[in-house]
C-alpha cells in the first residue's frame, strides 16, 4: 500500500470511530433545539434571584473558601518531600519509579471520588472535603514540583557546590531559589482550581456552598439557587483576581 493510501485508510478509520462516539453519546441537534424552551424557562424562573438567602449562601461560600485554603496549604507542604522523591535528577531509579507510579495512580482519581470515600469514612461536613482536597492536590502538586526540580539550571548548582558548600547548603542556595517561585505559583493556581472543585463537594455532603446549590435545585427554588450562584461567581472572580495579581508578582 502506498503512503497516501495508508493515510486515507487511517483517516476513514478515525471518522468511523468518531461517528460511533457521536452516536454512542446520543448527540442530537434536534433534541438540543427541542430543549431550548425548557432552558429559557429554567433561566426565567431564576429571576429575580431571591436575595433573602444571600447570608446563608455567603456562609457556604466562606466554608468552601476555607476548605480550599486549608486543603491546598496542607497539600503544598505534604507535596514537598514527595516532589523531591519523584524527581529524576534528585533520587535514583529504585526510588523514582515507585514514587512516580504512586503519584500517577492517586492523581487519576478525582477530588470528588475522594470526597465520597472520606464522607463514608469520617462522616458529613467540611472535614471530609478538606481530606479530599488534600489527597488529590498533594499528588498533583508533587508531580508539578518534581518537574520544576528536574527543569532547573544545573549551572548554579555546580557553582554553589564548587564553593565547598555542604549538601543542604547546595539545596538551599543552588536549588531552592530556582524552584520556590515556581512552587508558589503552582500552589496559587491549585488554590484557584480547588475553590472550583470545593464548590461541588457539598453535593456529596462534604461541606461548603455546593450544599445550598443542590438543596435549592432539589426544592425547585430557582430564585434561591440563582442567588447562591451569584455569590459563587463573585467569590471565584475575586479569588482569581487576587491570585493572578499575586502570581504575577512572584514569577
Amino acid at each position, binding site marked *: 500500500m502506498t503512503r497516501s493510501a495508508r493515510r486515507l485508510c487511517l483517516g476513514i478509520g478515525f471518522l468511523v470511530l468518531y461517528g460511533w462516539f457521536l452516536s454512542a453519546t446520543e448527540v442530537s441537534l434536534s433534541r438540543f433545539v427541542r430543549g431550548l424552551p425548557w432552558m429559557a424557562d429554567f433561566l426565567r424562573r431564576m429571576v429575580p434571584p431571591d436575595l433573602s438567602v444571600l447570608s446563608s449562601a455567603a456562609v457556604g461560600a466562606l466554608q468552601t473558601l476555607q476548605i480550599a485554603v486549608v486543603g491546598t496549604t496542607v497539600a503544598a507542604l505534604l507535596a514537598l518531600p514527595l516532589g523531591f522523591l519523584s524527581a529524576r535528577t534528585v533520587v535514583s531509579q529504585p526510588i523514582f519509579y515507585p514514587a512516580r507510579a504512586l503519584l500517577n495512580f492517586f492523581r487519576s482519581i478525582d477530588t470528588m471520588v475522594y470526597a465520597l470515600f472520606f464522607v463514608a469514612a469520617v462522616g458529613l461536613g467540611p472535614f471530609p472535603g478538606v481530606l479530599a482536597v488534600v489527597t488529590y492536590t498533594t499528588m498533583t502538586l508533587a508531580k508539578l514540583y518534581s518537574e520544576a526540580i528536574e527543569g532547573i539550571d544545573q*549551572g*548554579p548548582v555546580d557553582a554553589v557546590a564548587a564553593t*565547598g558548600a555542604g549538601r543542604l*547548603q547546595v539545596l*538551599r542556595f543552588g536549588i531552592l531559589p530556582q524552584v520556590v517561585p515556581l512552587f508558589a505559583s503552582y500552589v496559587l493556581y491549585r488554590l484557584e482550581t480547588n475553590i472550583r472543585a470545593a464548590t461541588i463537594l457539598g453535593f456529596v455532603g462534604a461541606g461548603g456552598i455546593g450544599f445550598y446549590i443542590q438543596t435549592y435545585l432539589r426544592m425547585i427554588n430557582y430564585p434561591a439557587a440563582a442567588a447562591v450562584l451569584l455569590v459563587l461567581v463573585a467569590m471565584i472572580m475575586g479569588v482569581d483576581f487576587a491570585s493572578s495579581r499575586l502570581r504575577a508578582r512572584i514569577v
Partner: protein
Amino acid sequence: MADCYDMIRTRGLRKTFPPNTVALDGVDLDIQPGEFVMVIGQSGAGKSTLLRCLNRLIEPTAGEIALNGSRVTGATPEALRAVRRQMGMIFQQFNLVKRASVMENVLAGRLGHVPGLPSLFGRFPRKDRELALSCLRLVGLEDFAERRADRLSGGEQQRVAIARALAQEPKVILADEPTASLDPMLTESIMGILQRINRERGLTLVVSQHMLETARAYGTRIVGLRQGRVVFDGPPGAITPGVVQALYEGGVS
C-alpha cells in the same frame, strides 16, 4: 613546609565518558603558586573536563590530583569540601542564581566558611557580609549589591561570579572559558581583572581559553591540550607556528 608542595599536581589524570569517549588521557601537571596558566586547545580537546576534574565537579576515571599537598582524588566528602573552599571557580555561563540578589550570590562564596545552620536561614556573620561587599568593590559592582542577578548584563554577571569566587578567599581560581560568552571589549575587562587578582593577590589561576591570542597575552604559562593529552607546556613565547599547527590543525580525528 607548605612551600614544598606544588599548588596543583596531577598524575595520570584520565576521564572517559561512556560509551567510549576519552576526554582526558593521562594528564600530568605541576602548577606552582602564583602561576597564570592558560589551557588552550580545540573544543573537545578536554579543557573543560580538566578544569572540572580539578575540583571534582566531574569525577576523574583514574589518576591523582593534589592541591597544595592535600589529596583531592579519594578525599572524603568533608575533605573535598575543605579542598573546594580553596579553589574558586568561574564558568562560561556565569552560573549565578538568577532570581537571587547580587549580594546573595557573592555570599554563596562564603558557604564553605560560615556556620552551617544559620546559613540555611540566610544568616551570615557581619564580617562575611563585609568581605562579600569588599569583593564586589574589587570588581566595581558594590552599588549593585541589592539588584537581582538577572538584571545585570553578561559582563557584569561574570564580574559578580568573580566576586563570588574571591569571597571564598581561595588559593586558586579555576576559570572555564570565562569570556566565551562575552564580546571582545568585555573579554579584555574580565581578563584584566583576573590578571590583577593574579599579580596583586598572588592567586594561582588556571584558565581555559579558546582564543589563542588572549591566552598568549595574559598567561605566564600555556598548556596545550589535544585529544585529552598535553601536547604543549611552556611560556607564551615558546609557542611556534609548529605548535599552533599541532594543536589546531587537522580537526578532531
